[in-house]
């Protein structure tokens, strides 16, 4: 049986809408605070969410962030519809960026996004189909909570 999350939140992300950039991540941060998640985990999730959200805003047409809160972990999925990533390994290199001039004028496109997400997360999985989009799934273990995965019993 699939594990049910304690809480689940989803927020849309509009591509190229720079003035909305960061709103979804700020909402995630607020929801996790209300859910009683510890401050350290909220920081890690918020930073990673913001980087992932800005990647969607800078490069894709649209997307969403989905956050699932479990007893022992938080799982964040960021999915977009857009050009996708041709070379994921290259995109993971600090300093490498394909951001537009407009994006750089807003203070983004330094090429730290994906490396920073990997730095914050305990697990990171990224898949992309060129011409369709990117699916990013990041997992953050909650401190002081033993892993529930593989230990759940029915009844």
């Amino acid at each position, binding site marked *: 049986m699939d594990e049910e999350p304690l809480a689940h939140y989803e927020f849309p992300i509009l591509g190229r809408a720079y003035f909305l950039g960061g709103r979804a991540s700020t909402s995630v941060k607020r929801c996790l605070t209300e859910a009683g998640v510890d401050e350290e985990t909220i920081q890690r999730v918020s930073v990673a969410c913001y980087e992932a959200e800005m990647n969607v805003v800078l490069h894709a047409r649209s997307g969403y962030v989905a956050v699932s809160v479990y007893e022992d972990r938080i799982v964040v999925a960021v999915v977009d519809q857009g050009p996708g990533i041709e070379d994921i390994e290259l995109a993971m290199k600090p300093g490498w960026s394909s951001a537009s001039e407009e994006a750089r004028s807003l203070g*983004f496109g330094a090429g730290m996004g994906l490396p920073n997400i990997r730095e914050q997360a305990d697990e990171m999985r990224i898949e992309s189909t060129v011409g369709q989009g990117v699916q990013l799934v990041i997992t953050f273990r909650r401190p002081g909570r033993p892993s529930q995965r593989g230990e759940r019993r029915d009844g």
Partner: protein
Amino acid sequence: MTLAEAVEVVKAEEEVAARDPGVELTGCFAADLMSDVLAFAAPGSLLITGLTTDQTIRTAAIRHLTAVIVIEGKEIGSDMREAAREESTPVYRTPLSKYEACALLMQAGLRPCRRRAAGSR
């Protein structure tokens, strides 16, 4: 060093008020690239920046930075001001360049924000 003391050092003017100007700063970070702020700035720090967009505020809020000081006397636009009020992030303006502002703050004893060790968060 408190926020009020740092503001005094760089002769900054208040644009969006702080609830507690007496708050102790944990350090200082200077950057215009928001990805760098997300990657390297530590919570509780002061941000010195030339970027005057609402993204500066959202980044500072996500990173729990104490306040933002904008350099070169740049104008704070309405989008940045509105975001700062929403996020309760104090904003100041200094006539100084980024280099001079940082140099004076360092001389006055405000340390760089503590960098995280490689492999840690």
